[in-house]
């Protein structure tokens, strides 16, 4: 998996690179529009993460260039521009997804994975862990061969955690994943807690009780193997 990250904030760039390298991606980067443009034209990537505000040009033009070449490459825009118009504009230009800054790394990871799953077949439609399997096409969760009845939110939480397996996922990142920005922490954390409790119960009843771990004060972790 080859990833191109176009971002002018050095710190943020380092952070994203570090995160995805640990995930086992091959990462390349560009600090500005010019480099980004060159890399896009000379090499092939599976997915590009593109910041819109670049010192020497508009990232949207990169997206446009990519799509003009009829590439199947996954494109994810990350930007501080957060109005509905900006989003629509970005998606219309051909991006697969649009994430506003500041974002959580787990969210970025989940989105990149979702894009890759849609784009290629090398990402399976199912996530399998021991006796638990999540079918993303049918939104179906099977535990010890039994189909679980999950609510939409429970399913989303489980999938989000599973996509970030073996990593601590913070509560605020779950909240943002489920509701976007407007949700208030105090209330939504209670809500997440209640949902994870239910989810865990349903999993435990079918012999999958060990997957969800609580990390006190921070969030949850999907423990695989």
């Amino acid at each position, binding site marked *: 998996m080859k990833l191109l990250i176009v971002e002018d904030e050095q710190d943020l760039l380092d*952070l994203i690179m570090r995160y995805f390298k640990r995930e086992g991606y091959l990462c390349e980067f560009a600090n500005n529009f010019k480099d980004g443009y060159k890399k896009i034209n000379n090499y092939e990537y599976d997915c590009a993460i593109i910041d819109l505000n670049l010192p020497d040009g508009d990232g949207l033009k990169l997206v446009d260039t990519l799509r003009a070449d009829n590439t199947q490459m996954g494109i994810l825009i990350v930007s501080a521009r957060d109005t509905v118009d900006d989003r629509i504009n970005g998606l219309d230009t051909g991006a697969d997804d649009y994430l506003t800054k500041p974002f959580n790394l787990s969210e970025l990871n989940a989105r990149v994975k979702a894009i890759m799953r849609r784009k290629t077949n090398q990402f399976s439609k199912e996530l399998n862990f021991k006796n638990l399997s999540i079918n993303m096409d049918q939104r179906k969760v099977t535990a010890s061969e039994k189909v679980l009845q999950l609510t939409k939110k429970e399913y989303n939480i489980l999938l989000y955690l599973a996509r970030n397996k073996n990593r*601590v996922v913070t509560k605020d990142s779950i909240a943002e994943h489920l509701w976007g*920005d*407007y949700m208030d922490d*105090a209330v939504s954390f209670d809500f997440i807690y209640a949902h994870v409790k239910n989810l865990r119960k349903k999993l435990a009843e079918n012999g999958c009780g060990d997957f969800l771990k609580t990390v006190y004060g921070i969030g949850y972790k999907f423990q695989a193997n």
Partner: protein
Amino acid sequence: MKKLKLLYIIPNLLAFSTATILIGYFFSSEYYLKAIIVAVVPALILAIGFRIITYRRIQFIRKQLYQILETLEEFDVDEPKKVNFEESPFPILNDLNEYLVELIDRVRKNYRANKQFTQNASHELQTPLAVIKGHVEILLQSPRIGEKEIESLAIVLQNTNRLSKINSSLILLSKIEHQRFSDTMKVDFEKVAEEVLKNFKDLISIQEIKIEKKYDGKFEVEMSETLAEILVANLMQNAIRHNVEDGFIKVEVKEKEFSISNSGISPKVPMESLFKRFKRDSEVEESLGLGLSIVKRICEQSGLEISYTYENGNHEIIISIPR
């Protein structure tokens, strides 16, 4: 000032000359009378003429002052339009104009710098905050990290989250203040309320809050749709957060009025100060104290009136169109 003093002399002068004439008339020495008339009549004419001239001048000055006032009234710090005053034949008014132009320039410059600073500060903070958060996330994944360290990281993370929430609220506030929302349309508050209720459905049900709806009329406002949603969402969030066990939330739409009321304990801070930034009811720790000032700003920007009352465990916020 000198001219004004002269003006005061005129009635005195008039009174004095009338008195002299009368004295002369009654004590009738013809020669004396003639002398007086010769002396007084030109003085009188002069005085009256002078008064007319002064009156005109004052009238003129007054007109010019009103013009200046009008220009000042129309003045808006936020607009780049240059303020122009008419050239006046009176040096003092020209001085005043000059001074005003200079003052306005200075005010504008300061205002712009201030505004720029708030905007820049919030925006510049975003990236470092994201970097801190990201690195904490990475640290959390390290297998070498123990429970004690995780506890510290949890605190770092909580506070960074708080900072970043405050920051995004401030960015939102400055965006509202500088009218960065252009999706103005006729907004139907019943629709907005339904949309917001749908988004908050989960939270309302988990806290077992009863929802009452009363739609008795249409409340339509010409305003930004985004802002209307933020407005109602903020109010709803407050109504949920400050609610009690077995509580209720009542959403009411009438002609020219929209209100949300909820059950809750009495507020700990004076009602008027609730709309101020960073004022919050200390009972609810996670509250940032920015929600209601955002609400207020949106109302001001959209020409709406807002009022808050508390009575017997019932908080009510009413949004209305001013009469």
